[in-house]
């Protein structure tokens, strides 16, 4: 293994130590990202490359550049913040899985060729599912299996795509592809599963809210972001992604505004932001790709913050259902303040780094020449974001009157430190000029921090809130949330396909029983033939083996005969 992969190795060793340590797992989880960050700082820089040999093949293990290093830095920060957040729980499985997961993410974004990417792609799936299963409920076990099916399937499709590209004599480096071959299409589908394309996304709202506390926080940081990273590396400028990205952003709007489980609201809201990023990848110019890189960072930060806050609510109040919460602002003022920062960032409010990243994304889309209504639609998603996080999470959980008496304390100090650190990062990147420049690896000179853009974004949010307030006063507010299941595409494989399979099996079983009954009836008739007597009874295994060998011998002779004629 090349020395440049040392940060990945440190994460894997840290995972091993956390798994084996008796009481040290929380501290190992904190120390590992720090050690890995030191190694990354020492070994990695734009232009660093390293190869490794696996079974006589030379693979490009590391190809570092500005974009991959931004993701590497982000994953380190996410790991450290999550480890601090979880400091009070001595859970070896969660700590070990988290470290292994981050290490796999770092390996994936550093990968220079598709085979190395695939190796870490599969490691991501295997390590992250442990974070879902770590919750230890029957519900999380089932959700973890579905999560694993999707993510392993993504890896299988990726491998098939790599094989198809190799057979066609294509270069297997992680680089631009065009959708003119089956291999490229398979890559697009594999990356799409990971990024959460519509219809391929259901594992996100299914597994994230059901995973462990650490899992629900850290899962937002890596899996889908590696999918976006892979898309940006290979399909930047592919116009199909403009449409897919828009659909990805629009698909979850119904769910984020109606869903009762607030962690599920955030999981769906992840798709809205990812949709914007995918659309910007489709635009493919330097402004858009700078926006994708920066927005991945900002999205991870504010989603971490919001998931952490809801984790604290879950620990203290025992639920994250909107219909059961309310009035938490008085007893959890710190957490409410952090949620407020997350709400502002999610809505792209000036003063947060997310304003810069969203304006870069939209600037890239504008430069790509999309139509004005389309641009307005994607711009307006910030306003909807204000509704689904501002109204649903901040208002319903913290400000609205309590649905039932609440006597809880605020988040613990480790939780507050982790959330406070992330909130500071979000505000600092928005308030300190030039702080986000290092996260713009494509070198675009677009300046989104202008008075006109700032005023425009504030207008957008204030008018959106005013419109909603007037609608609510007129009795047209969002429907009351409550305990229910909202059907999504998961219904297809959790209900439709099983019900069809059961009907087919019943039909076949009925046919088989009818045939068996007829044969047995025939068998009982005086003078019945040997066929009825043979088929009408159950056969021993030895008989099956005999007939299988017989058929194979017949086939062998048939083959010999055909070859001689």
């Amino acid at each position, binding site marked *: 293994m090349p020395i440049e992969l040392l940060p990945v190795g440190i994460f894997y060793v840290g995972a091993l130590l956390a798994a084996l340590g008796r009481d040290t797992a929380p501290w190992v989880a904190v120390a590992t990202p720090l050690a890995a960050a030191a190694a990354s700082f020492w070994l990695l820089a734009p232009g660093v490359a390293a190869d490794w040999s696996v079974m006589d093949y030379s693979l490009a293990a590391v190809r570092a550049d500005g974009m991959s290093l931004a993701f590497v830095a982000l994953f380190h920060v996410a790991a450290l913040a999550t480890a601090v957040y979880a400091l009070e729980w001595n859970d070896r499985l969660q700590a070990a899985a988290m470290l292994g997961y981050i290490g796999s993410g770092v390996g994936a974004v550093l990968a220079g060729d598709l085979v190395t990417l695939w190796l870490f792609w599969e490691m991501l799936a295997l390590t992250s599912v442990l974070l879902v299963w770590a919750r230890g409920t029957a519900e999380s076990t089932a959700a973890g299996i579905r999560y694993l099916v999707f993510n392993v399937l993504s890896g299988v499709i990726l491998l098939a795509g790599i094989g198809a590209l190799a057979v066609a004599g294509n270069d297997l480096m992680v680089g631009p592809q065009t959708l003119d071959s089956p291999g490229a299409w398979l890559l697009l589908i594999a990356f799409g599963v990971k990024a959460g394309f519509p219809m391929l996304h259901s594992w996100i709202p299914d597994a994230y809210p059901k995973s462990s506390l650490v899992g629900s926080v850290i899962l937002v940081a890596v899996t889908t972001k590696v999918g976006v990273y892979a898309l940006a590396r290979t399909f930047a400028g592919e116009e199909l992604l403009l449409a897919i990205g828009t659909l990805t952003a629009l698909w979850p709007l119904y769910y984020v505004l109606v869903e009762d489980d607030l962690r599920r609201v955030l999981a769906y809201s992840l798709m809205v932001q990812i949709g914007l990023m995918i659309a910007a990848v489709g635009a493919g110019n330097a402004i858009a790709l700078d926006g994708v890189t920066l927005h991945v960072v900002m999205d991870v930060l504010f989603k971490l913050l919001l998931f952490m806050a809801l984790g604290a609510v879950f620990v203290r109040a025992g639920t994250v259902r909107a219909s059961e919460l309310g009035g938490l602002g008085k007893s959890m003022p710190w957490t409410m303040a952090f949620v407020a920062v997350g709400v502002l960032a999610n809505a792209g409010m000036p003063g947060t780094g997310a304003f810069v990243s969203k304006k870069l994304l939209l600037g890239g889309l504008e430069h790509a020449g999309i139509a004005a209504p389309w641009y307005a639609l994607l711009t307006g998603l910030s306003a909807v974001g204000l509704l689904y996080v501002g109204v649903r999470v901040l208002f319903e959980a913290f400000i609205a009157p309590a649905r039932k008496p609440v006597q809880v304390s605020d988040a613990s100090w480790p939780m507050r430190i982790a959330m406070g650190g992330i909130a500071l990062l979000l505000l600092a990147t928005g308030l300190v000029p030039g702080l986000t420049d290092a996260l713009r690896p494509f070198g675009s000179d677009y300046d989104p921090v202008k008075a006109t853009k700032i005023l425009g*974004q504030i207008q957008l949010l204030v008018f959106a809130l005013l419109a*909603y307030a007037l609608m609510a006063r007129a009795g047209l507010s969002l429907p009351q949330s409550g305990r229910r299941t909202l059907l999504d595409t998961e219904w297809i494989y959790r209900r439709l396909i099983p019900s069809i399979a059961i009907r087919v099996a019943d039909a076949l079983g009925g046919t088989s029983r009818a045939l068996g009954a007829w044969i047995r009836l025939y068998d009982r008739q005086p003078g019945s033939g040997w066929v009825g007597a043979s088929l009408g009874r159950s056969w021993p295994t030895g008989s099956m083996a005999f007939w299988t060998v017989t058929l194979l011998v017949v086939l062998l002779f048939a083959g010999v005969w055909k070859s001689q004629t």
Partner: protein
Amino acid sequence: MNEWIRNRGLSALIVAAVALGAAGLWIRPEEGIDAMPGFYPLTGISIVVAVVLAVRVLRGWLWRPEDEYDAD
């Protein structure tokens, strides 16, 4: 805070909207899609109205009992 939002929130929003709308008449981009007067206010209002109405129309279509998938 809840009382303040109920009593003063709407008034504050109207004042803010009027002030921002007036400022937007002078401060807006010279070129680009968003140079159109009222681009941001109109976008904010129209998307919120459209999405909330759509959600209200669609509610119930995709609702099932909480135990819909419990047999899994």
